[in-house]
Protein backbone atom coordinates (compact mmCIF):
# COMPACT_ATOMS: atom_id res chain seq x y z
CA UNK A 1 0.00 0.00 0.00
CA UNK A 2 1.36 3.41 -0.94
CA UNK A 3 1.18 5.95 1.87
CA UNK A 4 -0.94 9.01 1.17
CA UNK A 5 1.16 12.15 0.63
CA UNK A 6 1.34 14.40 3.65
CA UNK A 7 0.21 18.01 3.60
CA UNK A 8 3.18 19.96 4.88
CA UNK A 9 3.13 23.64 5.82
CA UNK A 10 6.57 25.21 6.09
CA UNK A 11 6.72 28.68 7.60
CA UNK A 12 9.88 30.32 6.30
CA UNK A 13 10.39 27.88 3.46
CA UNK A 14 12.14 29.92 0.77
CA UNK A 15 15.62 29.97 2.29
CA UNK A 16 18.05 27.98 4.39
CA UNK A 17 16.77 25.12 6.51
CA UNK A 18 13.13 25.70 5.58
CA UNK A 19 13.85 25.63 1.87
CA UNK A 20 15.89 22.42 2.17
CA UNK A 21 13.05 20.83 4.14
CA UNK A 22 10.52 21.93 1.51
CA UNK A 23 12.56 20.52 -1.34
CA UNK A 24 13.03 17.23 0.46
CA UNK A 25 9.31 16.84 1.24
CA UNK A 26 8.43 17.61 -2.38
CA UNK A 27 10.81 14.91 -3.58
CA UNK A 28 9.06 12.50 -1.22
CA UNK A 29 5.80 13.29 -3.04
CA UNK A 30 4.23 15.45 -0.33
CA UNK A 31 2.00 18.46 -0.92
CA UNK A 32 3.99 21.41 0.34
CA UNK A 33 2.72 24.86 1.15
CA UNK A 34 5.63 27.13 1.97
CA UNK A 35 5.73 30.74 3.05
CA UNK A 36 8.26 33.51 3.23
CA UNK A 37 8.43 37.29 3.54
CA UNK A 38 10.35 37.40 0.24
CA UNK A 39 7.65 37.15 -2.40
CA UNK A 40 9.96 37.24 -5.45
CA UNK A 41 12.14 34.36 -4.25
CA UNK A 42 9.12 32.37 -3.07
CA UNK A 43 7.29 32.67 -6.37
CA UNK A 44 10.40 31.79 -8.33
CA UNK A 45 10.91 28.66 -6.23
CA UNK A 46 7.27 27.67 -6.59
CA UNK A 47 7.44 27.97 -10.39
CA UNK A 48 10.69 26.02 -10.45
CA UNK A 49 9.31 23.22 -8.30
CA UNK A 50 5.96 23.12 -10.10
CA UNK A 51 7.83 22.86 -13.43
CA UNK A 52 9.53 19.78 -11.99
CA UNK A 53 6.10 18.28 -11.38
CA UNK A 54 5.98 18.86 -7.64
CA UNK A 55 2.96 19.97 -5.65
CA UNK A 56 4.37 23.24 -4.29
CA UNK A 57 2.38 26.31 -3.29
CA UNK A 58 3.91 29.58 -2.13
CA UNK A 59 2.07 32.08 0.05
CA UNK A 60 3.74 35.34 0.95
CA UNK A 61 3.70 35.80 4.73
CA UNK A 62 4.97 38.27 7.26
CA UNK A 63 5.23 36.01 10.33
CA UNK A 64 4.83 38.99 12.66
CA UNK A 65 1.33 39.54 11.26
CA UNK A 66 -1.46 37.50 12.81
CA UNK A 67 -3.69 38.28 9.82
CA UNK A 68 -1.11 36.85 7.42
CA UNK A 69 -0.64 33.77 9.58
CA UNK A 70 -4.38 33.12 9.86
CA UNK A 71 -4.66 33.46 6.08
CA UNK A 72 -1.87 30.94 5.50
CA UNK A 73 -3.57 28.36 7.71
CA UNK A 74 -6.98 29.02 6.11
CA UNK A 75 -5.65 28.82 2.54
CA UNK A 76 -3.85 25.56 3.25
CA UNK A 77 -7.04 24.10 4.70
CA UNK A 78 -9.04 25.41 1.71
CA UNK A 79 -6.63 23.68 -0.66
CA UNK A 80 -6.10 20.36 1.07
CA UNK A 81 -8.57 20.11 3.94
CA UNK A 82 -5.88 19.39 6.51
CA UNK A 83 -2.33 20.12 7.70
CA UNK A 84 -0.41 16.99 8.66
CA UNK A 85 2.97 18.54 9.34
CA UNK A 86 3.93 22.06 10.40
CA UNK A 87 7.57 23.10 10.22
CA UNK A 88 8.33 26.55 11.61
CA UNK A 89 11.66 27.75 10.29
CA UNK A 90 11.34 31.52 9.83
CA UNK A 91 14.04 33.37 11.70
CA UNK A 92 16.39 36.34 11.73
CA UNK A 93 19.70 36.98 13.40
CA UNK A 94 22.56 39.44 13.56
CA UNK A 95 25.85 39.11 15.38
CA UNK A 96 25.97 41.96 17.85
CA UNK A 97 26.95 42.56 21.41
CA UNK A 98 24.39 43.66 23.97
CA UNK A 99 25.46 47.30 23.94
CA UNK A 100 25.07 47.49 20.16
CA UNK A 101 21.59 45.98 19.91
CA UNK A 102 18.96 48.67 19.53
CA UNK A 103 15.55 48.29 21.10
CA UNK A 104 14.09 48.15 17.61
CA UNK A 105 16.38 45.25 16.63
CA UNK A 106 15.64 43.46 19.89
CA UNK A 107 11.86 43.72 19.35
CA UNK A 108 12.12 42.74 15.68
CA UNK A 109 14.15 39.60 16.47
CA UNK A 110 11.72 38.52 19.19
CA UNK A 111 8.74 39.29 16.97
CA UNK A 112 9.99 37.20 14.05
CA UNK A 113 11.55 34.32 15.96
CA UNK A 114 9.18 33.98 18.90
CA UNK A 115 5.91 35.81 18.23
CA UNK A 116 5.96 34.35 14.71
CA UNK A 117 6.13 30.87 16.23
CA UNK A 118 3.34 31.67 18.70
CA UNK A 119 1.13 32.84 15.82
CA UNK A 120 1.88 29.74 13.74
CA UNK A 121 1.01 27.38 16.59
CA UNK A 122 -2.11 29.34 17.50
CA UNK A 123 -3.36 29.31 13.91
CA UNK A 124 -2.50 25.73 12.94
CA UNK A 125 -3.07 23.61 16.07
CA UNK A 126 -6.90 23.99 16.07
CA UNK A 127 -6.93 22.79 12.45
CA UNK A 128 -4.72 19.82 13.30
CA UNK A 129 -6.94 18.88 16.24
CA UNK A 130 -10.03 19.00 14.01
CA UNK A 131 -8.29 16.40 11.85
CA UNK A 132 -7.16 14.15 14.67
CA UNK A 133 -3.70 15.65 15.27
CA UNK A 134 -0.47 16.44 13.52
CA UNK A 135 3.29 16.69 13.73
CA UNK A 136 5.00 19.97 14.55
CA UNK A 137 8.71 20.60 14.21
CA UNK A 138 10.13 23.89 15.42
CA UNK A 139 13.50 24.97 14.08
CA UNK A 140 15.21 26.34 17.17
CA UNK A 141 18.85 26.82 18.03
CA UNK A 142 21.45 25.37 20.35
CA UNK A 143 22.38 28.94 21.26
CA UNK A 144 19.33 28.97 23.53
CA UNK A 145 21.06 26.32 25.64
CA UNK A 146 24.52 27.83 25.70
CA UNK A 147 23.57 31.46 25.39
CA UNK A 148 25.80 32.33 22.51
CA UNK A 149 25.87 32.65 18.75
CA UNK A 150 23.86 35.24 16.93
CA UNK A 151 23.71 37.58 19.87
CA UNK A 152 21.70 37.80 23.04
CA UNK A 153 18.52 38.79 21.18
CA UNK A 154 18.68 35.67 19.00
CA UNK A 155 19.45 33.28 21.88
CA UNK A 156 16.65 34.82 23.96
CA UNK A 157 14.10 34.44 21.16
CA UNK A 158 15.12 30.83 20.58
CA UNK A 159 14.99 30.11 24.32
CA UNK A 160 11.40 31.29 24.33
CA UNK A 161 10.57 28.56 21.83
CA UNK A 162 11.52 25.90 24.40
CA UNK A 163 8.98 27.05 26.98
CA UNK A 164 6.34 27.68 24.34
CA UNK A 165 6.77 24.17 22.95
CA UNK A 166 6.49 22.64 26.42
CA UNK A 167 3.38 24.65 27.24
CA UNK A 168 1.78 23.53 23.98
CA UNK A 169 2.77 19.91 24.61
CA UNK A 170 1.37 20.13 28.14
CA UNK A 171 -2.00 21.13 26.73
CA UNK A 172 -2.31 19.19 23.48
CA UNK A 173 -0.31 15.96 23.87
CA UNK A 174 -3.49 13.95 24.44
CA UNK A 175 -5.14 15.47 21.37
CA UNK A 176 -2.73 14.06 18.80
CA UNK A 177 -0.30 16.97 18.70
CA UNK A 178 3.24 15.66 18.39
CA UNK A 179 5.65 18.56 18.88
CA UNK A 180 9.42 18.68 19.08
CA UNK A 181 12.22 21.09 18.36
CA UNK A 182 15.33 20.62 16.29
CA UNK A 183 18.21 22.76 17.48
CA UNK A 184 20.84 23.11 14.80
CA UNK A 185 24.14 24.81 15.47
CA UNK A 186 26.82 25.78 13.01
CA UNK A 187 24.94 24.64 9.91
CA UNK A 188 26.21 26.01 6.59
CA UNK A 189 23.33 28.33 5.65
CA UNK A 190 22.88 31.93 4.59
CA UNK A 191 22.42 32.73 8.29
CA UNK A 192 25.84 31.30 9.13
CA UNK A 193 27.32 33.41 6.33
CA UNK A 194 25.97 36.48 8.14
CA UNK A 195 27.58 35.42 11.41
CA UNK A 196 30.85 34.15 9.91
CA UNK A 197 31.33 36.08 6.66
CA UNK A 198 34.91 35.04 5.82
CA UNK A 199 36.47 31.64 5.12
CA UNK A 200 38.98 32.38 7.86
CA UNK A 201 36.19 32.91 10.38
CA UNK A 202 34.45 29.71 9.27
CA UNK A 203 37.68 27.73 9.56
CA UNK A 204 38.20 29.05 13.07
CA UNK A 205 34.65 27.95 13.82
CA UNK A 206 35.24 24.46 12.34
CA UNK A 207 38.13 23.97 14.73
CA UNK A 208 35.78 24.52 17.67
CA UNK A 209 33.45 21.73 16.56
CA UNK A 210 34.40 18.28 17.88
CA UNK A 211 33.86 16.59 14.50
CA UNK A 212 35.67 19.49 12.74
CA UNK A 213 32.93 19.96 10.17
CA UNK A 214 30.10 22.38 9.69
CA UNK A 215 26.65 20.85 9.60
CA UNK A 216 24.80 20.60 6.30
CA UNK A 217 21.23 21.30 5.35
CA UNK A 218 20.82 17.57 4.82
CA UNK A 219 21.74 16.95 8.46
CA UNK A 220 18.97 19.27 9.56
CA UNK A 221 16.46 17.92 7.06
CA UNK A 222 17.09 14.37 8.27
CA UNK A 223 16.38 15.44 11.84
CA UNK A 224 13.24 17.33 10.83
CA UNK A 225 11.96 14.32 8.90
CA UNK A 226 12.58 12.08 11.87
CA UNK A 227 10.73 14.40 14.25
CA UNK A 228 7.86 14.76 11.78
CA UNK A 229 7.48 11.02 11.44
CA UNK A 230 5.97 8.08 13.27
CA UNK A 231 9.52 6.95 14.05
CA UNK A 232 9.76 9.62 16.75
CA UNK A 233 6.27 8.91 18.12
CA UNK A 234 7.50 8.58 21.71
CA UNK A 235 9.52 11.78 21.64
CA UNK A 236 7.47 14.70 22.88
CA UNK A 237 8.48 18.28 23.69
CA UNK A 238 12.15 17.46 23.21
CA UNK A 239 15.07 19.51 21.99
CA UNK A 240 17.14 17.58 19.46
CA UNK A 241 20.59 19.11 18.99
CA UNK A 242 22.21 18.86 15.58
CA UNK A 243 25.59 20.35 16.36
CA UNK A 244 28.54 18.00 15.69
CA UNK A 245 29.05 17.82 19.46
CA UNK A 246 29.57 21.58 19.77
CA UNK A 247 27.17 22.26 22.61
CA UNK A 248 28.19 19.73 25.22
CA UNK A 249 31.70 18.71 24.20
CA UNK A 250 33.36 22.12 23.99
Amino acid at each position, binding site marked *: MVAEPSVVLIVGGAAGIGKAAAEDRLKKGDKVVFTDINEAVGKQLMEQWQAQGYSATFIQQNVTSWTDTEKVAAKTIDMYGRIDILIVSAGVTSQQR*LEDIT*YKQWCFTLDVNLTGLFYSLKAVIPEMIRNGGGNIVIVGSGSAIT*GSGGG*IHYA*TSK*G*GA*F*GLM*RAVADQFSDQGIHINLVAPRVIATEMLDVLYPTEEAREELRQKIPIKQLGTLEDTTNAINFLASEASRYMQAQVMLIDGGRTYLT
Partner: protein
Amino acid sequence: MNILLFDANHCIAEALTQSFQSVYMLEFTDRLKGQGKLCQYKSGQRQESLLTFDLLEDEAASIAAWLDQHDVRLEAMVNNLEQVTDKSLLETSLVQWQESLLINLHFPFLLVKALVPYLSERGQCIHLSSTMAVSGESGAVNYASHKSALESFSKSLSRECSERQIRSNVISVSPRCWKETNGVQQVSQMIYQMCYNPASFLNGQVITFDNGETLS
Protein backbone atom coordinates in the same frame (compact mmCIF):
# COMPACT_ATOMS: atom_id res chain seq x y z
CA MET B 1 26.23 46.97 49.18
CA ASN B 2 24.03 48.58 46.52
CA ILE B 3 21.41 46.43 44.89
CA LEU B 4 18.74 47.44 42.42
CA LEU B 5 15.44 45.59 42.32
CA PHE B 6 13.53 46.00 39.06
CA ASP B 7 10.04 45.86 40.54
CA ALA B 8 9.14 47.17 44.00
CA ASN B 9 5.62 45.77 43.74
CA HIS B 10 6.75 42.13 43.82
CA CYS B 11 6.43 39.96 46.94
CA ILE B 12 10.22 39.63 47.19
CA ALA B 13 10.64 43.39 47.68
CA GLU B 14 9.60 43.53 51.32
CA ALA B 15 11.75 40.55 52.25
CA LEU B 16 14.78 42.17 50.63
CA THR B 17 14.30 45.44 52.50
CA GLN B 18 14.47 43.41 55.70
CA SER B 19 17.73 41.70 54.67
CA PHE B 20 19.62 44.57 53.07
CA GLN B 21 20.51 47.91 54.63
CA SER B 22 19.66 49.74 51.44
CA VAL B 23 17.82 48.70 48.28
CA TYR B 24 17.21 50.76 45.15
CA MET B 25 13.92 49.79 43.58
CA LEU B 26 11.89 50.70 40.54
CA GLU B 27 8.37 51.51 41.60
CA PHE B 28 6.16 51.41 38.53
CA THR B 29 3.22 53.77 38.45
CA ASP B 30 2.13 52.38 35.06
CA ARG B 31 3.92 49.14 34.31
CA LEU B 32 2.65 48.67 30.78
CA LYS B 33 3.87 52.15 29.88
CA GLY B 34 7.18 51.55 31.65
CA GLN B 35 6.70 54.61 33.83
CA GLY B 36 7.60 54.93 37.48
CA LYS B 37 9.99 56.18 40.11
CA LEU B 38 13.44 55.10 41.21
CA CYS B 39 13.29 54.84 44.99
CA GLN B 40 15.70 53.97 47.73
CA TYR B 41 14.63 51.96 50.76
CA LYS B 42 16.92 52.30 53.72
CA SER B 43 16.58 50.17 56.78
CA GLY B 44 14.45 51.89 59.42
CA GLN B 45 13.69 54.88 57.22
CA ARG B 46 10.93 55.90 54.87
CA GLN B 47 11.49 55.27 51.20
CA GLU B 48 13.03 58.11 49.27
CA SER B 49 11.88 58.88 45.76
CA LEU B 50 14.91 59.76 43.62
CA LEU B 51 13.62 60.35 40.10
CA THR B 52 10.84 59.49 37.70
CA PHE B 53 11.54 57.36 34.64
CA ASP B 54 9.87 56.38 31.40
CA LEU B 55 11.51 53.27 29.96
CA LEU B 56 9.84 53.47 26.57
CA GLU B 57 10.74 57.13 26.24
CA ASP B 58 14.44 57.08 27.17
CA GLU B 59 15.34 53.36 27.42
CA ALA B 60 16.48 53.75 31.05
CA ALA B 61 18.93 56.56 30.21
CA SER B 62 17.57 58.74 33.03
CA ILE B 63 18.24 56.00 35.60
CA ALA B 64 21.75 55.53 34.21
CA ALA B 65 22.34 59.28 34.33
CA TRP B 66 21.22 59.43 37.95
CA LEU B 67 23.57 56.59 38.94
CA ASP B 68 26.36 58.34 37.07
CA GLN B 69 25.66 61.70 38.64
CA HIS B 70 25.60 60.23 42.15
CA ASP B 71 28.55 57.96 41.49
CA VAL B 72 26.58 54.88 42.48
CA ARG B 73 27.93 51.49 41.53
CA LEU B 74 25.70 48.45 41.94
CA GLU B 75 26.83 45.12 43.31
CA ALA B 76 23.73 43.40 42.00
CA MET B 77 20.71 43.95 39.80
CA VAL B 78 17.75 41.74 40.64
CA ASN B 79 15.37 41.33 37.71
CA ASN B 80 12.09 40.34 39.28
CA LEU B 81 9.86 41.81 36.58
CA GLU B 82 7.11 39.42 35.67
CA GLN B 83 3.70 39.31 34.10
CA VAL B 84 1.68 36.17 34.56
CA THR B 85 -1.34 35.52 32.38
CA ASP B 86 -3.12 32.30 33.18
CA LYS B 87 -4.22 31.60 29.64
CA SER B 88 -3.67 28.65 27.35
CA LEU B 89 -2.42 28.98 23.76
CA LEU B 90 -5.86 29.35 22.25
CA GLU B 91 -7.14 31.65 24.99
CA THR B 92 -4.18 34.02 24.88
CA SER B 93 -4.96 37.20 22.98
CA LEU B 94 -2.36 38.92 20.84
CA VAL B 95 -2.43 41.87 23.25
CA GLN B 96 -1.79 39.61 26.26
CA TRP B 97 1.14 38.01 24.44
CA GLN B 98 2.65 41.43 23.66
CA GLU B 99 2.12 42.71 27.21
CA SER B 100 3.85 39.65 28.59
CA LEU B 101 6.77 40.15 26.18
CA LEU B 102 7.05 43.76 27.28
CA ILE B 103 7.20 43.06 31.01
CA ASN B 104 9.04 39.74 31.03
CA LEU B 105 11.60 40.47 28.32
CA HIS B 106 11.62 43.93 26.73
CA PHE B 107 11.91 45.93 29.96
CA PRO B 108 14.60 43.65 31.43
CA PHE B 109 16.53 44.04 28.16
CA LEU B 110 16.31 47.85 28.32
CA LEU B 111 17.27 47.99 31.99
CA VAL B 112 20.12 45.48 31.78
CA LYS B 113 21.55 47.07 28.64
CA ALA B 114 21.49 50.57 30.17
CA LEU B 115 22.62 49.62 33.66
CA VAL B 116 25.23 46.86 33.21
CA PRO B 117 27.92 49.56 32.90
CA TYR B 118 27.01 50.62 36.46
CA LEU B 119 27.63 47.18 37.91
CA SER B 120 30.85 47.06 39.85
CA GLU B 121 33.59 44.64 38.89
CA ARG B 122 32.49 41.20 40.15
CA GLY B 123 28.91 42.45 40.22
CA GLN B 124 26.03 40.29 39.12
CA CYS B 125 22.60 40.07 37.58
CA ILE B 126 20.09 37.80 39.29
CA HIS B 127 16.91 37.02 37.36
CA LEU B 128 13.83 35.50 38.90
CA SER B 129 12.30 32.87 36.68
CA SER B 130 9.82 30.05 37.09
CA THR B 131 9.93 26.29 36.85
CA MET B 132 7.11 26.70 34.34
CA ALA B 133 9.85 27.53 31.83
CA VAL B 134 10.94 23.89 32.06
CA SER B 135 7.75 22.04 32.89
CA GLY B 136 5.57 23.99 30.46
CA GLU B 137 2.20 25.05 31.75
CA SER B 138 -0.74 24.99 29.39
CA GLY B 139 -2.48 27.49 31.65
CA ALA B 140 0.24 30.09 31.28
CA VAL B 141 1.65 29.84 27.79
CA ASN B 142 3.06 33.39 27.74
CA TYR B 143 4.77 33.03 31.06
CA ALA B 144 6.31 29.61 30.30
CA SER B 145 7.67 30.88 27.00
CA HIS B 146 8.96 34.22 28.21
CA LYS B 147 10.62 32.85 31.35
CA SER B 148 12.29 30.20 29.22
CA ALA B 149 13.54 33.03 26.98
CA LEU B 150 14.78 34.89 30.06
CA GLU B 151 16.91 31.91 31.05
CA SER B 152 18.63 31.99 27.65
CA PHE B 153 19.00 35.76 28.03
CA SER B 154 20.82 35.24 31.33
CA LYS B 155 23.16 32.63 29.83
CA SER B 156 24.04 34.97 26.97
CA LEU B 157 24.56 37.80 29.40
CA SER B 158 26.92 35.68 31.50
CA ARG B 159 29.01 35.01 28.41
CA GLU B 160 29.10 38.62 27.30
CA CYS B 161 29.88 40.11 30.69
CA SER B 162 32.26 37.51 32.09
CA GLU B 163 35.26 39.41 30.72
CA ARG B 164 34.37 42.14 33.25
CA GLN B 165 33.88 39.40 35.84
CA ILE B 166 30.20 40.21 35.94
CA ARG B 167 28.01 37.19 36.38
CA SER B 168 24.43 36.42 35.51
CA ASN B 169 22.33 33.70 37.09
CA VAL B 170 18.70 32.72 37.37
CA ILE B 171 16.72 31.68 40.43
CA SER B 172 13.86 29.56 39.15
CA VAL B 173 11.01 29.27 41.62
CA SER B 174 8.09 26.89 41.45
CA PRO B 175 4.58 28.35 41.90
CA ARG B 176 4.22 26.18 44.99
CA CYS B 177 7.37 27.58 46.58
CA TRP B 178 5.99 31.13 46.34
CA LYS B 179 2.86 29.92 48.18
CA GLU B 180 4.75 28.26 51.05
CA THR B 181 4.81 30.28 54.26
CA ASN B 182 8.57 30.75 54.12
CA GLY B 183 8.92 30.47 50.31
CA VAL B 184 9.52 34.17 49.75
CA GLN B 185 11.99 34.18 52.65
CA GLN B 186 13.95 31.29 51.12
CA VAL B 187 14.32 33.08 47.80
CA SER B 188 15.27 36.29 49.59
CA GLN B 189 17.92 34.43 51.60
CA MET B 190 19.33 32.97 48.39
CA ILE B 191 19.68 36.47 46.92
CA TYR B 192 21.30 37.63 50.14
CA GLN B 193 23.79 34.75 50.03
CA MET B 194 24.57 35.40 46.39
CA CYS B 195 25.28 39.05 47.17
CA TYR B 196 27.18 38.75 50.46
CA ASN B 197 28.97 35.46 49.86
CA PRO B 198 29.33 35.53 46.10
CA ALA B 199 30.51 32.33 44.45
CA SER B 200 32.72 33.54 41.65
CA PHE B 201 32.33 30.27 39.74
CA LEU B 202 28.55 30.44 39.76
CA ASN B 203 27.78 31.93 36.38
CA GLY B 204 25.21 31.30 33.66
CA GLN B 205 23.28 28.92 35.90
CA VAL B 206 19.69 28.27 36.86
CA ILE B 207 19.21 27.62 40.58
CA THR B 208 15.91 25.88 41.14
CA PHE B 209 13.61 26.21 44.15
CA ASP B 210 11.01 23.52 43.58
CA ASN B 211 11.47 20.82 46.22
CA GLY B 212 12.20 18.41 43.36
CA GLU B 213 8.81 18.89 41.70
CA THR B 214 9.94 19.81 38.21
CA LEU B 215 11.60 16.54 37.38
CA SER B 216 8.98 14.35 38.98
